């Protein structure tokens, strides 16, 4: 990820570097601490497995970072996961699509769902939060309506490779996540598109006056968000071998938590993929580590909440002391 470390060169470089290095340090301490408490935690096996389990959230967190950098938000991702899972199963079972086509169809629907969000947000100028709250209900509803609450099972073996298989011992979907993370990092850091995201988030009017294609960029970002949710849906279906309309419920908050924990400003204009990855890993490994150390699920949630607030608090207070 050395590429993405550069990303922070944007805006107030030292600030972000501090925030993320700081998070990384907190993460490291947590890891070592938990590792000492439990010998089953810091094993390659466990870590890889955790990577497998956090992939769906991770895939969505990448474009969500983009969205939030532009000063927007997308609450409909969880619902899109459900919708696309249904589309995958439904088109395969009921339309009799060959599975690869069904996957393509699911991705298409996901992209479309995101595109619709983006279209209304840019054309009708509905604030993202409002739009995506509404489509959160709508898309989930569509998933239920289309599926008539049926779940689809019995996919061909090869399909499970995506969600349960592994390449050289590394979970397939984790490789996918790493690949896309690097791509997202480079896009955000090195491309005009990435730069446009920051500009739009920092000051949309200036971006327009600077002849940046603001609306197109936003449209793309929300479409990507939908697309990633669709991809996550496919991975999830392949991992759990079935399709249900309630899949991905509540993902939106997990994703947003990872992104903001990663130092992306909810007000837009700053943030990095690198940070998001740290935030993501932090939450997942904290949950896992605590569970392995004998902390119950409910208590774990509490710790996560405290961790979320504290780490952002520490990071930003140190940052303030600097200037």
């Amino acid at each position: 990820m050395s590429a993405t470390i550069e990303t922070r060169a944007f805006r107030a470089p030292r600030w972000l570097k501090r925030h993320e290095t700081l998070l990384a340090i907190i993460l490291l301490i947590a890891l070592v601490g938990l590792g000492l408490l439990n010998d089953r935690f810091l094993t390659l096996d466990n870590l890889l497995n955790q990577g497998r389990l956090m992939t769906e959230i991770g895939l969505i967190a990448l474009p969500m970072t983009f969205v939030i950098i532009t000063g927007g938000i997308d609450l409909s991702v969880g619902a899109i996961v459900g919708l696309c899972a249904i589309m995958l199963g439904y088109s395969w079972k009921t339309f009799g699509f060959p599975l690869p086509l069904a996957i393509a169809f699911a991705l298409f629907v996901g992209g479309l769902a995101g595109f619709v969000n983006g279209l209304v947000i840019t054309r009708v100028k509905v604030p993202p939060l409002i739009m995506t709250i509404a489509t959160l209900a709508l898309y989930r509803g569509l998933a239920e309506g289309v599926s008539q609450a049926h779940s689809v099972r019995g996919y061909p073996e090869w399909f499970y490779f995506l969600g349960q298989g592994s390449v050289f011992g590394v979970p397939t979907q984790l490789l996918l996540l790493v690949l896309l993370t690097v791509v997202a990092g480079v896009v955000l850091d090195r491309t005009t598109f990435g730069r446009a995201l920051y500009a739009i988030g920092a000051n949309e009017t200036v971006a327009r006056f600077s002849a940046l294609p603001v609306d197109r960029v936003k449209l793309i970002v929300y479409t990507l968000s939908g697309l990633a949710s669709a991809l996550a849906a496919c991975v999830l279906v392949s991992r759990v071998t079935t399709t249900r309309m309630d899949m991905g419920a509540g993902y939106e908050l997990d994703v947003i938590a990872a992104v903001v924990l990663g130092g992306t400003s909810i007000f837009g204009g700053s943030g990095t993929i690198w940070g998001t990855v740290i935030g993501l890993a932090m939450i997942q490994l904290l949950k896992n580590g605590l569970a392995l150390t004998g902390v119950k699920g409910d208590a774990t949630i509490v710790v996560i909440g405290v961790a979320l607030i504290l780490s952002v608090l520490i990071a930003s207070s140190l940052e303030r002391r600097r200037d």
Partner: protein
Amino acid sequence: MSAAAIASSASGRTGVFRRLAGQELLLAVAIVVLAVVVGFINPRFLATRNLSDILLGNAYIAIAAVGMSMVIISGNIDISVGALIGVLATISGSLAVAGAPTIVTWIAPLVIGVAVMAAQGAIIAYLRIPAIVVTLGMLSILKGGLISVTGGKWITDLPQNFHLADLSLFGVPMPVIIMVLATVAAALWMRNSPMGRAIYATGGNPEAARLCGVNPQRTVLMVFALHGFFTGLASLVYATQLRVIQSTTPQGLELTVITAAVVGGVSILGGVGTVVGSTLAAILIAEITSALVFINVSPYWTDALRGALILATVIADILRRQRRAAQGWKR
């Protein structure tokens, strides 16, 4: 119907209100239109009993939305409200079962609600952590904490006099009274008190607010404290309505409340909005949910349609605002 009553009571003379009366009108009309259309298909829908039941069953959402819209107007957001309602309900229920005097069981959630929200407000305002982070964290703290403490054991055998929601005044059930009072009081306060104006100022332009003597930090703190109070009220209605209290946090309630607030015409960017709108929106959404059952929509499609209707209302409102803005420029 009482919704319209609320609307008229609130369409005040002052700037913000006059300008947003449109939104309240839109919602009020939507409520009536829907009622008429559905009543046309299934007259039973218009039975007073049903209409009042709709209000009764959803009053707590409307009440919580009042506080939520204040928070949003001040330029913040609160994800923890649903979880907090669950926690407060459990606390007051447990107190009741433990035999605490009724009045205590009713006041406790209010006090604790204010305390918790004020704490969050302090972190947000003085430590300058984005509200979404703080409240997201609090959400999982409360959620997990509640279960660890109660183990999810339901609270039953509540004393009869605990059930505030069962009381009624001149035949009007308490939840509706509380809802109306909370809304009207909040609306009047936001409009008439310097503090209330400060909220709009803070949400609209914090820097400016600071330079003309409004203290944004204190304002945000106060807004959250108030929000806590309304959350307490909501949880009180929520808890005293049924004979059983599920000592878990109601799923996705926060989104329902936020939806009500934003559909109510609260600009999510802060600064503009009215609490009356949010109450009307809460009623409208509840009405939609009930209506979809009454007109025999396939149960599989109700959620999709509710989503579509909410979206329609929002888009309609936005378009209306844009038209208004356009006229504003011609002037």
